[in-house]
């Protein structure tokens, strides 16, 4: 009877330890996943910002949408520019001598600002 009870307790203890280990591992993996996502978001944001600043500085210097298109090596379609990468999309629209820049990551707007043209 004692042996059976001892074996039962042993199995219970092993199960409890396995549960604790798997829970701990799951939490750690989740934290690693969240870290990887945050790092990827930061990388995409920085890359989008870099391209947007390049376009903005070109527009500030020239005030010419064609110069922005040439700088980013993209075609101009109906006066709008679209710079696409596998991570983000930059859209540039022009009105009243100003340029509106918007960056999207999977349809979510991650960056938006307006740039005044050259004086």
């Amino acid at each position, binding site marked *: 009877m004692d042996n059976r009870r001892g074996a039962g*307790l*042993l199995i219970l*203890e*092993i199960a409890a*330890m396995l549960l604790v*280990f798997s829970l*701990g*591992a799951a*939490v*750690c*993996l989740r*934290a*690693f996943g*969240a*870290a*990887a*996502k*945050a*790092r990827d*978001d*930061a990388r995409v*944001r*920085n890359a989008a*910002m870099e391209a*947007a*600043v390049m376009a*903005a500085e070109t527009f*500030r210097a020239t005030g010419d949408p064609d110069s922005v298109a040439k700088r980013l090596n993209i075609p101009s379609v109906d006066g709008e520019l679209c710079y696409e990468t596998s991570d983000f999309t930059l859209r540039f629209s022009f009105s009243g*001598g*100003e340029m509106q*820049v918007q960056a999207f990551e999977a349809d979510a707007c*991650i*960056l*938006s*600002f*307006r*740039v*005044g*043209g050259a*004086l």
Partner: protein
Amino acid sequence: MNNRRFFGPVGLVSLGVSFALVVMAIFSVTSLTKARAELSRAVTVCDAKAAFYLADAEAAHIARALEAAYSEQRLESCAEEYACTVRENLVSYGVPLDDRQVLAVTLRFDGEMEILSWRVENTQRWNPSDAISVWTGGN
């Protein structure tokens, strides 16, 4: 016997797994903290750049309006409209970026508009830290 019962299945393998779990937990928390800091910095940089270009566009808009007003010989009234400071042929104004910085612009109107300065300035007084006694050249 009691000791054996107490430690139960905690053998070398369990200790190894526990250690690995603790190490993994430390690495995951460190990694998450660093990644969140990176993301936070990226968001802050994006916000700062967006604020700068917004202020820059506003400043350019004011400059264009002043230039047009100057050609129509109503510079003073236009400068007053945009809360600019006029001193002889110099017009100065500032567009706030945030609560600590302003884009300060100085324009000279002498036949045509000339940009004398176009720079970001701090609006808050800088208080140098005097906690560390730095050698200043004396004995």
